[in-house]
Structures are given as structure tokens and as C-alpha cells.
């Protein structure tokens, strides 16, 4: 771990100014991902700007939705009464992530910005275009169990590992970002990017931009939401695949549907083609499978990760079936 200067800041603008001015600087919040990477040699900043004491931890429920401060801890968000009651998918996704200790320390912004758990990204002795641009991708022909099945590129097949962002994607949330020139709002769906030939860039944020909050609109009346995560260990494991769903049925037909998939792409994957195929139609297993297959037409999987296609098909059905209230549990 390289030596670095540590500075705790007291105002967001100051934090942004410090990091924006120094290409070797980075933000520190809960530390659950950055400290891990400092030890692995994946991150080697010269300056660490601690934003964890900025007054950005509030969770405020308003008429239009809830505004979650960047420093709100995962456990506090998950257990907020309005989040639990009205944004089930978000609460469930948070509680499905990591461990209770990590949820107590990880922040909302930090959770959004967590980096892939691809084993090669975390092993500095191997080639990885995300960590060392141009060095090659070890995952494509290597340990492929978690590799992306959607949106991967020649240079990277890493998956975004988080759960919360998948729920936020299904909730059409907006990320509030503070930069040197002031605030801007980014739909969460546009926060993370596909790897293309720049897998080193996880997000569309510029260096020095700081997430200060997330705005989550309430669900449309009559809609329900759910999150289902599949993992091999029963707890404390990243998703093999996960599905966040928002559903409203009127007279047996789908009138509101949002689907986001986790663990299958470099970003939370909004399954818009599948949504469109199901809108206005009755919900049954065959039509859900057909809709998912439409979305998966562009999928690319090998022997090690082809199971994710079956999972997406089955779990999307499971989530929608249960939301529709038909399912046996």
C-alpha cells in the first residue's frame, strides 16, 4: 500500500475542489471497497479525501419520493420506515447485499460506486484491462463463472457486483452529483457504463465529481416491487444473478413494468425490451420467457456462465409471478 496523505473535509465543495485538482486523489467514504483496494494494490492514490463526515447522511421522505444522502449507511436506508413500506425492492436489495457489518459502514454513494469483484481485477499479478488498461482481459478465457452475459466487450467481461443500484435502476432513481461547476442530475441508469474499449471507466462521472445524494420517486399507485437475488452461499455472497421488478396489473394486463437485472453486465441492466414486450399483456410463464429471450437475443455466454441465461429467465418469472400474487412460495 503506497503512502498517501489523508484529509478529512467538512464541506462538499472543498472535497470536490481537492480531488478535482489532483489526478492522484480519491474520495473515501465507508471504506469497504477502497480500503480493500488499497491493500490489494488495485488503488494507489497519493491523497485520500475523507468525505464520511460530510453532513450528507439524511434520508428525507417527501411528496414525490425519498432523497437519500450520499453518506446514509446501507442499513439505515434499508430500515427507513418509508423505504421498507413503499420501496420494497430497495430495502430488499440492500439487505441482500454484503453482511450486516458492511451494511453498517457502507454508504449510499460508496455502494453505487463499488467496483467489480472479477478475480483478475483484484489480482495485480494478472492481466486486466480495467485495472491496467491495455494489459489484456484474463477473464474472457479464464475463470468465467461470474462473467457478464450482456454488454461485454473484447476488452472486459466484468460485472457490476452491487444490489442497491439494480433496485434503484428499476425505481428510475436519479443521482445528484456535485462537480467543480456545481450540481447535476444523472439518471441512475446512466451512471454506470458498458466497458467498450474503456473498461477502466466504471461510470460516467468525471474525476472529482462527488455523489451527494440519490432521489428515488415513489412507485406509481397500485404498483408493487420486489428483489430476488440468487447466490450459491445462502448469505454474504455476490449475486449469480438478481432481478429487481416493479409491476402493476390492471384487469389482468401489465400496465406498469420495470425490470432490472444484476450480476449479468458491467452495469445494472434495465431490460427495456422485455418490459415493452409484456406491457399491455397478461402475465404468464410463456410470455415472460419470451420477453426475457427477446432481451437476451444479444447475450453472449460461454460454458461457465451460460447458467445466467437460465437464471434470468426463471427468476424474472419468479419475481413477476410473486408480484402478481399468484405464486406459491
Amino acid at each position, binding site marked *: 500500500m503506497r503512502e498517501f496523505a489523508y484529509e*478529512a473535509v467538512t464541506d462538499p465543495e472543498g472535497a470536490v475542489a481537492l480531488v478535482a485538482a489532483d489526478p492522484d486523489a480519491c474520495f473515501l467514504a465507508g*471504506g469497504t471497497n477502497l480500503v*480493500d483496494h488499497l491493500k490489494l494494490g488495485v488503488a494507489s492514490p497519493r491523497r485520500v479525501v475523507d468525505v464520511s463526515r460530510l453532513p450528507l447522511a439524511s434520508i428525507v421522505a417527501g411528496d414525490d419520493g425519498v432523497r437519500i444522502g450520499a453518506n446514509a449507511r446501507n442499513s439505515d436506508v434499508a430500515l427507513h420506515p418509508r423505504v421498507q413500506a413503499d420501496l420494497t425492492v430497495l430495502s430488499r436489495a440492500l439487505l441482500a447485499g454484503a453482511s450486516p457489518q458492511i451494511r453498517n*459502514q457502507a454508504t449510499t454513494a460508496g455502494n453505487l460506486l463499488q467496483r467489480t469483484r472479477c478475480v483478475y481485477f483484484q489480482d495485480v499479478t494478472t492481466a486486466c484491462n480495467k485495472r491496467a488498461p491495455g494489459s489484456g482481459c484474463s477473464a474472457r478465457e479464464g475463470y468465467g463463472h461470474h462473467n457478464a452475459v450482456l454488454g461485454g466487450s473484447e476488452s472486459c467481461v466484468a460485472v457490476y457486483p452491487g444490489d442497491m443500484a439494480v433496485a434503484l435502476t428499476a425505481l428510475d432513481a436519479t443521482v445528484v452529483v456535485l462537480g467543480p461547476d456545481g450540481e447535476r442530475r444523472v439518471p441512475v441508469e446512466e451512471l454506470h457504463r458498458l466497458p467498450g474499449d474503456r473498461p477502466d471507466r466504471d461510470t460516467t462521472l468525471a474525476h472529482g465529481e462527488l455523489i451527494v445524494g440519490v432521489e428515488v420517486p415513489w412507485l406509481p399507485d397500485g404498483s408493487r416491487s420486489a428483489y430476488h437475488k440468487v447466490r450459491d452461499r445462502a*448469505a454474504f455472497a455476490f449475486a449469480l444473478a438478481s432481478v429487481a421488478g416493479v409491476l402493476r396489473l390492471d384487469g389482468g394486463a401489465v400496465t406498469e413494468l420495470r425490470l432490472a437485472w444484476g450480476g449479468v453486465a458491467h452495469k445494472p441492466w434495465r431490460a427495456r425490451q422485455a418490459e415493452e414486450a409484456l406491457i399491455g399483456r397478461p402475465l404468464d410463464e410463456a410470455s415472460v420467457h419470451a420477453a426475457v429471450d427477446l432481451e437476451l437475443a444479444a447475450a453472449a455466454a460461454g460454458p461457465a456462465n451460460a447458467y445466467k441465461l437460465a437464471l434470468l429467465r426463471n427468476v424474472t418469472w419468479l419475481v413477476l409471478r410473486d408480484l402478481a400474487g399468484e405464486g406459491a412460495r
Partner: protein
Amino acid sequence: MGARLQIEIGLTVDGAERRLLVDTRSTLLDALRDRLGVTSPKKGCDHGQCGSCTVLLDGRRHLTCLTLAAAADGREVVTAAGIGPDHGRGGLHPVQQAFLRHDALQCGYCTPGQVCSAVGMLAEAAAEEVTLDDAEIRERMSGNLCRCGAYVNILAALRDVARSEGTG
């Protein structure tokens, strides 16, 4: 660069005020163990994947291996050594007593972390007004790995404590 590569911090550890100079790279775990000689929290993986280093930080269960010591300035740490009455000088915490009764440990290396995590869990459940049934306890303790496989006995111990506290 004029950077501060060392930083002075203050911590309250098991009731005692401590001041120390730390390398900015030091984790809270290493600062506790190597600088202060507080070896109750253990290093099992150093990457937040096992829970052996769990303490209560300002009352909440927390992984010290993923916390920079510098970022913990001014905070209160309670380890398994000081979790009992009177910062551990007054005997064992009910969770620790239950661990002994149910043989909820073998090698003991993960145990201080399990104990701190369990105490944190009980407080969380009380705050949430949640009943800790077996499934809840298992899920909520899953951040603490035990390779000896004492889970069954840890569950029995925590079921006992939860019932006596009225949260189970």
C-alpha cells in the same frame, strides 16, 4: 507534497481514552493490535470477508480491517475484551456467558468478532422491534464466518439471549 503521512488520532477503547500517532495507511484493526496492544479483534482475512475483526464502533458492529485508523479519530471502540459490564472488568456479557454454556466456539479465533456482532445484532433487533427467530439470527450473523463450524451452537446461544432479552 507536504502531505501528512502520519496523523494523530484519539480513540476510546474499551472505556480508556487513547491517543496515538498512526500511519495514514493503518487500518483501525492494525492500530488497535499493533499500536495499542488491543488484540481481542482478530485478523482473519483483512478484506471484510470473515468478520473476525468486528468491534462495536460508536455502538454499531463494524469491521476494523476496512476502516482507516485516521478515519476513526474521535470514535468509541468496544471489543470483546471490554464488552462485559464495567468495560469487561465486571465479568462477562450475557452473550459471552451463553457462548460458554452452549460451547459456541472451538478454536476461538472468530469468537471475539462473533460476540461483538451478536451484541450489535441484539441492539439492532431491539431498535427495529424485530423478533429474532432462528432464521433471522442466522441471516443477521452471516457476516461472521466460523470454519470450525460452531454455527449450530452459536445459534443456540443467541436464541437463549434473545429470549431472555425479550427479542426472541
